């Protein structure tokens, strides 16, 4: 009986087989397969479920103290080169495997409810299984090369899923943007991988780390080059994990169906960058410059995400910017040399953010019943309000998520975020201050989302407001608004069990999982990095922990309090108090730091212009020369006609003479 670790290759293969089967079915027997909704969903959920069982078996083995397993085979090669592929299971991988399969499973169950009216139901499940497979493959990759392979594949799944509703222009643009921005990151990643391979002759994480520092220490490689290579590789995680300035794709990616936002753009794929940086710790650790850059970029990102989230009116966009901000926290942890803390935040964040997104999906699903299938309306918080009465489960779980992310003990977010802040306080006090400030903002904007959505009166039936929102989005008011609303219901309803159950299930870890990572006895740390965990536990002192933790809780409470005053009790009108007084700042934030505009102007327009110019050169200059030559030849042909004698022998003589002449010429050179 082989151990579960030896069967780890089955984990990505099982969902892949399911996806291939239904994918082929869709291409060949489209109509029949599209009608087999439940069997297909059942098949794919089963395949992911089996992967989940295996993953937990592996996690159990790791908890019991099994070592890592690595299996490699020759994938491609020539000469003395061998590109190897295979799989590798260790504690870090086991945690990620369990996390990904759990959330994928829950999201699939949820999607059965969410996508029930969609005609692309089967296609959606196929993509989901395909994504799960790629993501799981990424987690068990033993080397950078294989990571790159799956890195691209999850990017492709993200492209397909963001553009799932391809008749919507916004979704089409977002999908393309996501892929291209990620390719910009991959550009660096690819070059970095190539460079590291050139410098060390290896794709393996530990090997690269050892040989790179050995080469630098031995003087064979300048430190600058090594740092540059590390930073190039870091471009990949920057794009995938939405770090400034490559974060621009993530908020747009919210055009995809909400289960996707929960699975890919909150819990798993965007965390892949953080995961890769954690894997690369042996490479990055010897270079403090690299660590500093990572920490600074993480800090900029967490600050930027939180500030933009303050002004968002779209429920999902608000959550998206919150994700950007939280990913920044994880990167900050990596930069502080605390991968365990970063990974722990990744895990806790995955649970509560997935729950928040699924909750927002539940809200949107309910809103669509009232305002119709129009994302501009169904996702706008100005039309929500008072949903707690109609959707008790959704609102309760959403509230749990808000508390968790705000960092109120003993919920999950407190422990992980506090650990990161503690590490930052010791490494980079300035960056800690930013993170600390942002923690307050996080609490504020999350509770702002909560109050606007679930408390107060329901505003979804306000036809005037709807028309205003539609015209602001540049869309014509649909005719059906004349008869009040083109939804079917006058007020939203709680979602069915398929959607409610995953929310409840996710609420449990959102509350409790943080207790596995208490700084004085971190079971998570023991699993992933026992040495470091023991060290942390040894150095732990209440005198150090309590003031920092207290400060974090205090600023979070301040944020919550402000949100309560402004949005629940309506004591302060922030619109006039802040936005009115500092219109520049408000505009700056509402326009997302103008990054999208800059992007559009420089890169999109610029590349279009450049391409047009090159094409002009191609058709006018390069081809022009050719056509001109053609004309001249024609002309000279006309001229030559007069010398025509019509004797074949004469031509033969000329050709022969020419050949002889050339041969002589050549022998002279030779």
């Amino acid at each position: 009986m082989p151990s579960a670790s030896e069967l780890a290759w089955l984990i990505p293969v099982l969902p892949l087989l399911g996806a291939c089967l239904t994918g082929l079915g869709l291409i060949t027997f489209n109509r029949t397969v599209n009608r087999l909704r439940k069997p297909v969903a059942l098949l794919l959920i089963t395949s992911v479920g089996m992967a989940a069982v295996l993953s937990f078996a592996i996690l159990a083995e790791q908890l019991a103290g099994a070592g890592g397993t690595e299996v490699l085979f020759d994938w491609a090669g020539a000469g003395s080169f061998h590109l190897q592929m295979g799989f590798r299971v260790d504690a870090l991988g086991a945690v990620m495997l369990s996390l990904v399969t759990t959330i994928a499973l829950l999201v699939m169950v949820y999607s059965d409810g969410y996508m029930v009216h969609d005609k692309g139901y089967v296609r959606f499940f196929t993509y989901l299984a395909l994504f799960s497979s790629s993501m799981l493959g990424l987690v068990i990759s033993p080397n950078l090369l294989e990571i790159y392979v799956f890195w691209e594949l999850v990017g492709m799944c993200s492209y397909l899923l963001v553009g799932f509703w391809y008749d919507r222009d916004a979704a089409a643009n977002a999908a393309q943007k996501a892929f291209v921005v990620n390719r910009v990151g991959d550009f660096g990643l690819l070059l970095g991988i190539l460079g590291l391979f050139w410098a060390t002759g290896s794709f393996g994480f530990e090997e690269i780390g050892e040989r790179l520092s050995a080469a630098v220490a031995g003087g064979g490689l300048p430190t600058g080059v090594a740092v540059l290579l590390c930073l190039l590789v870091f471009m990949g995680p920057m794009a995938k994990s939405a770090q400034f300035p490559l974060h621009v794709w993530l908020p747009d990616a919210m055009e995809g169906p909400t289960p996707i936002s929960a699975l890919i753009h909150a819990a798993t794929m965007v965390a892949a960058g953080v995961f890769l940086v954690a894997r690369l710790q042996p490479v990055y650790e010897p270079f403090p410059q690299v660590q500093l850059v990572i920490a600074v970029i993480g800090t900029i990102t967490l600050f930027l995400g939180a500030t933009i989230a303050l002004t968002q009116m779209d429920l999902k966009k608000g959550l998206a910017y919150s994700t950007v901000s939280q990913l920044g926290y994880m990167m900050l942890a990596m930069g502080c040399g605390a991968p365990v803390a970063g990974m722990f935040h990744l895990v806790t964040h995955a649970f509560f953010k997935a729950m928040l997104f699924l909750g927002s999906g539940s809200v949107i699903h309910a809103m669509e019943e009232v305002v119709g299938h129009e994302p501009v309306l169904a996702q706008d918080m100005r039309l929500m309000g008072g949903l707690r009465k109609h959707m008790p489960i959704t609102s309760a779980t959403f509230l749990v998520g808000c508390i968790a992310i705000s960092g109120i003990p003993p919920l999950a977010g407190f422990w992980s975020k506090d650990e990161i802040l503690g590490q930052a306080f010791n490494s980079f006090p300035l960056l800690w201050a930013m993170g600390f400030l942002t923690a307050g903002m996080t609490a504020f904007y999350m509770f702002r989302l909560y109050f606007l959505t679930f408390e107060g009166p329901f505003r979804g039936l306000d036809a005037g407001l709807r028309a205003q929102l539609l015209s602001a989005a540049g869309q014509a008011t649909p005719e059906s608004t004349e008869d009040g609303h083109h939804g079917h219901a006058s007020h939203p309803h709680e979602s069915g069990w398929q959607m409610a159950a995953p929310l409840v299930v996710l609420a449990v870890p959102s509350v409790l999982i943080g207790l596995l990572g208490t700084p004085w006895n971190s079971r998570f740390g023991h699993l992933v990095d026992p040495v470091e965990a023991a060290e942390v536990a040894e150095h732990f002192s209440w005198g150090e922990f309590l003031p920092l933790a207290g400060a974090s809780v205090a600023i979070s409470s301040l944020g919550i309090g402000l949100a309560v005053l402004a949005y629940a009790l309506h004591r302060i009108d922030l619109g006039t108090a802040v936005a009115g007084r500092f219109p520049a700042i408000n505009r700056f934030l509402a326009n997302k730091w103008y990054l999208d505009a800059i992007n559009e102007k420089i890169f999109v327009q610029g590349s279009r212009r450049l391409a047009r110019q090159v094409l002009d050169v191609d058709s006018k200059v390069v081809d022009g020369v050719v056509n001109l030559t053609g004309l001249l030849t024609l002309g000279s042909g006309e001229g030559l006609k007069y010398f025509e004698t019509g004797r074949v022998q004469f031509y033969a003589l000329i050709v022969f003479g020419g050949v002889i002449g050339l041969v002589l010429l050549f022998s002279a050179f030779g």
Partner: protein
Amino acid sequence: MCDNAHAVGVVEAGISTLRPDGQHRSVPFPWLSTAILFPIGAALLIPFVPDKGDGKQVRWYALGVALTTFLVTVGAYLRGYDPADPGLQLVERVQWLPDLGLAWSVGADGISMPLILLTSFITSLACLAAWPVTFKPKLFYFLLLAMDGGQIAVFAVQDMLLFFLAWELELLPVYLLLAIWGGKKRQYAATKFILYTAGSSLFILLAGLAMAFYGGGAPSFEYTVLAAKEFGTGFQVLCYAALLIAFGVKLPVVPLHTWLPDAHGEATAPVHMLLAGILLKMGGYALLRFNVQLLPEAHAQFAPLLVILGVVNIIYAALTSFAQRNLKRKIAYSSISHMGFVLIGIGSFSALGTSGAMLQMISHGLIGASLFFLVGATYDRTHTLQLDEMGGIGQKMRKMFALWTVCSLASLALPGMSGFVSELMVFVGFATSEAYSLSFRIVISVLAAIGVILTPIYLLSMLREIFFGKENPELVSHSQLVDAEPREIYVISCLLVPIIGIGLYPRLVTDSYRAAIEALVDREAIALVKVGRAPVPAVMAAGAFGTLPPALLHAPALG
């Protein structure tokens, strides 16, 4: 009729003699001659095929012939070819005109065998793609089959004069296929094509004659004889320059590429598949066969130029493709861009890079053919190639949308598909090559990697404009958007199976030519030492152009 000559491998290593003689040659079936002559002979019989003129009978006949040819080449691979042997195999040799030194000499090694298989495979699919052709079907299929034989001959012959004949012979069908079944500007495109390629092939003849007569004695055009000759370096450089122009037109290399968008823009889908799938590969094959194998010392001098031209190809063509508004021309430019990786691989002086160039040719043969087939299938429905006139057609044609998406992703080198492996091999091979200075490698790698960003930009925005978004009301009003039919799905699936197969396990293909490429690269390494360029990166340190001036100065002397 054919006396199976002794093993005359280019590198007559011990491997072929170690094997008990006659083990794999015990069945003296002339596989390659059959693969060349059978489709041509069968094409000559087409006038006798009973057909009412609508092509319904003759297309079955043509498909049968093409499939038989494919099976013959597969048989040759399975029964007569040993992938571990770096030398020439399946050799058949008949004296033809002994006075001229001309012999019917065919054979296959690692460089030609995969391309022979690719040719017969793509031609079979092109026959299936040509199913709806009703205008002069007999002539159409005649030309298609003649091309099949001609192209296999290009890859299989082992005699430079024969090569020249086959090369020229294959031009004629393409010219006619373009000029008769092409689009609106077909005359212009066909003329341009014939002028370009015929003009450039003159250089092949010149270089061939020069090499055959070099050193006195009875002239011989056979590759093995030519390879054994010790050409002087100056002579090599001249020949190399001439051949580079000839093959550069075919590949195409950037300033010589303008025939391609016109030819591809006017051709019909099956011709398209052949143009992109096979014709371009003739250039890459010939570069490996002649420029690298016969003239290694000149190659050692010219290689930096190849690499630079490769990068120019990648970026320049990617940009023009992005700006193109015509679908066919867009894909045509993307072909040029992808062939840039072949150039870099050939110039990389590493087994991995050269192997990657070879794989890129095969991979692009499959991916390019699939994309061009889809262009044709889409045009049949929309009756327009202008992207501005499309939009939102994914709603009526969902399967077509899926096929387009998969093929575009393959073309933008998504892992799991063949394009990724070949580009990766070229990247890794070049980045670790000892023959270039570090700065040169960095600059080239960075520039080539920009192609990695540009390719999805133009391919995805193309998909975006064709399929995504709201339906274009004008398009829907006057055209019937029927979804993909089984024949079309079948053709694409046939192409996708090897594309994904190679992507998942590239050794399926790379092992079939590995030995030959390694032998070739060994030859390159010796030449590098001779020229005094390796492994001294310092020569190149000044930048890319360190060794170029001599080569560039010599080139015009001939051209």
